[in-house]
């Protein structure tokens, strides 16, 4: 089979951070090639280099044997590379036909031939088996049609390489199937398709080959038919399946049930989920990127409303309609993105720590200054927060110490259930160990923890029970001795 696109030794740096460390990627004509990887693997960076959004710092890209240097999306399109992004990057305020032909409209002198625009748009959509009113505004159509429009745009410019970046994340099952049918048809016509998705089932349903990236490097490229799921998962997270056998998790402390989640779901996002959270135990949420971990946390904490199911505590349904209600019910949420959703960099360590407590009291009942200072001093000592003093702006602290301040903020609330979303991401090894030790102390003090982490070993080390998510659904709940790297990976990879 002929090689269509060949990216060799692609390097991309952002400041001191190297996002791609010499990645090689080959796409054949007439294949669907899945590009896989966990958070920070470099998938989206590679795609943006191929499509001319980012300029590579090293390496070469050739399309059909001809070297290209795509410094802009326009040049990439001219070279035959088209992209359909996850959040459809078209113009909802223009018609379907215009979206397909924008920038390439057939002209008569200085004027656009609108009739010809519509005709060519209809022709491109017909190749996808879609018939819609091409004169209607794009924004009036569902996402599935908008995506087809984006693909039709690629077809009209005779793209040879089509990149689909998580195209199915907002489609339902039937719409996804229709998209796959179109993908197969285009493949059979000789197009090379790069497919990015977090859904293993979909990857195996349509892909011919699979390339895995991890931490900005190429792990390898395999024929999909010859790559067992378990092996794929182990390539993605970088852990040998055979290694680290039966760790067995943390032995249950035998606490009483603190919360019971019963069929909780948010339509189109995650669920339904059913599991119990015991007092004095950490419950883990494990799964691949995009499996619905953070979505579950946000739903539990009332940030995104659940559409079904309930959470029960002591026999009564708990109101989780808003973060405020969730806090009143004894929940606390330490978010994954501490820069955006967590710390307020210009405020001091003390102010950041008392923030949630102040919020729960309302504006008028200020936490007295002396009490604030006592709290800050207590947590700085207890959590070993390395700061020059309680009045230092939190933005100047290291990532690990910022994280500890956030933990302090929620511990000051003395919640019954603390949700920790990726508490150790982006902090150094020593700080990781301290955070884990802290979790242990909180458990022994009787607090329940919902522990979310992409690092499976961390989940195994800290949790007495693990809810495994796959494709945004609950795949299994593992208990005590059943918890191990291997069982979690097998559950994630099962079909």
């Amino acid at each position: 089979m002929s090689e269509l696109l060949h990216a060799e030794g692609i390097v991309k740096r952002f400041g001191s951070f190297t996002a791609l460390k010499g990645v090689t990627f080959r796409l054949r004509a007439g294949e669907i090639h899945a590009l896989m990887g966990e958070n920070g693997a470099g998938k989206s960076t590679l795609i943006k280099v191929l499509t001319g959004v980012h300029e590579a710092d090293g390496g070469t890209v050739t399309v059909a044997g001809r070297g290209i240097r795509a410094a802009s999306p326009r040049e990439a399109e001219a070279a035959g590379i088209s992209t359909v992004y996850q959040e459809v990057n078209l113009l909802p305020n223009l018609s379907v036909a215009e979206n397909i032909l924008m920038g390439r409209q057939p002209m008569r002198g200085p004027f656009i031939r609108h009739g010809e625009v519509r005709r060519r748009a209809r022709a491109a959509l017909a190749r996808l088996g879609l018939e819609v009113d091409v004169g209607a505004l794009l924004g009036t159509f569902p996402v599935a049609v908008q995506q087809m429009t984006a693909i039709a745009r690629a077809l009209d410019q005779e793209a040879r390489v089509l990149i689909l970046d998580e195209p199915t994340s907002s489609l339902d099952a039937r719409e996804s199937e229709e998209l796959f049918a179109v993908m197969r048809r285009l493949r059979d016509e000789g197009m090379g398709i790069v497919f990015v998705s977090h859904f293993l089932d979909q990857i195996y349903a349509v892909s011919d080959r699979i390339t895995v990236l991890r931490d900005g490097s190429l792990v390898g490229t395999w024929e999909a038919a010859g790559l067992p799921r378990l092996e794929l998962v182990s390539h993605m997270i970088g852990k040998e399946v055979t290694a680290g056998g039966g760790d067995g998790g943390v032995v249950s402390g035998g606490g009483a049930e603190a919360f019971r989640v019963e069929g909780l779901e948010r339509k189109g996002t995650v669920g339904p989920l059913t599991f119990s959270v015991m007092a004095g135990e950490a419950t883990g949420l494990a799964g691949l990127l995009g499996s619905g971990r953070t979505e579950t946390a946000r739903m539990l904490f009332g940030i995104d409303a659940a559409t079904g199911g309930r959470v029960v505590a002591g026999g009564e349904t708990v109101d989780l309609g808003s973060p405020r209600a969730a806090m009143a019910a004894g929940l606390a949420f330490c978010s994954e993105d501490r820069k955006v959703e967590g710390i307020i960099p210009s405020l001091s360590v003390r102010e950041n720590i008392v923030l949630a407590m102040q919020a729960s009291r309302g504006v008028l009942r200020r936490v007295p200054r002396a009490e604030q200072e006592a709290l800050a001093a207590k947590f700085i000592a207890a959590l070993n927060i390395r700061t020059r003093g309680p009045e230092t702006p939190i933005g100047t602290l290291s990532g690990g110490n910022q994280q500890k301040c956030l933990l302090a903020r929620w511990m000051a609330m003395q919640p019954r259930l603390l949700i920790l979303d990726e508490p150790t991401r982006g902090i150094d090894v020593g700080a990781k160990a301290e955070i884990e030790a802290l979790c242990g102390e909180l458990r022994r003090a009787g607090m329940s923890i919902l522990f979310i982490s992409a690092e499976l070993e961390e989940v195994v080390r800290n949790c007495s029970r693990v809810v495994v998510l796959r494709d945004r659904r609950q795949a299994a709940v593992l208990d005590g001795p059943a918890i191990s790297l291997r069982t979690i990976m097998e559950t994630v990879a099962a079909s």
Partner: protein
Amino acid sequence: MNRIFASRLLPLMATGLVLVALFAAAGAGYENFLSARVVLNLFKDRAFLGVVAVGMTFVILSGGIDLSVGAVMAFTTVFLAKVIGGLGWSAPVAMLAAVGIGVGFGMFQGWVIHFFRIPAFLVTLAGMFLARGMAFVVSPRSVEIRSAFYDDLGERGLPLGEGLLLTVGPLMYLVVVAAGMVVAHGTRFGRNVYALGGNEASAALMGLPVGATRVGVYGVCGGCAALGGVISTLALSSGDPTRGTGLELDAIAAAVIGGTVLTGGRGWVFGTFLGVLILGTIKTILDFDGSLDPAWLRIASGGLLLGFILLQKLIARQSVS
């Protein structure tokens, strides 16, 4: 009914309806209101605003705003008075030069907005002070324009019968509106303006020339502002550095009443045409009545503006659900 409500032309239809209603009400209330002369005067009085508003429509469609148009218009009037009266330039050359300056000034603003990523509001606010200041530098007070060309042009126009004449100013206005409609809907530049206002990031990812379009759109607006100045000197035979104070707000109001959405990407040049006529009709009614406080002009414009903004919001909600 549902069909009408779902139509994307709804704001335009609403604007047209308001215009017809205003005219009908005024025609019933005042004798001689529904006459060709009244309509003709309406076009004559509003011609400069109309031209400026067409330029403003392009800027708003692209997702921007231009506060400098009133000041650019004022500068143009004193510039013309100075170079024609003081330096003895021929009037047509002076007019072309004035429009050229307007286009250049606008393009410069567009360039600053695009390449330094500064909000258009701030850049054109600075441009407004700059142009207004330059107008006062050219002439601190109103200057009469004495020119045979102006006298001659004043008598020319399209005869409409009954001794009525569509003079050059309103004629230019109609031509600009027609040209604006064609450019907005029939050329790549026009469609790129809509694309830019719809979603700049998407427009860039689709490979559209975002920078050139933005620079061009402010050039168009600056040119229209200068042309508005030319038309105003034709009507008044004078240049005045204080003219057009607050004109930018009238132009924005006309565009919004005409159905153009301030966040960009949706609207019509023809809608702005109707919007200008609505503002002009309210003014004419006040002139006709004489007993009404002129403050009602502002109040009525404000009420209409609010009404149309609410209507747009309602439609936006409809199309979401």
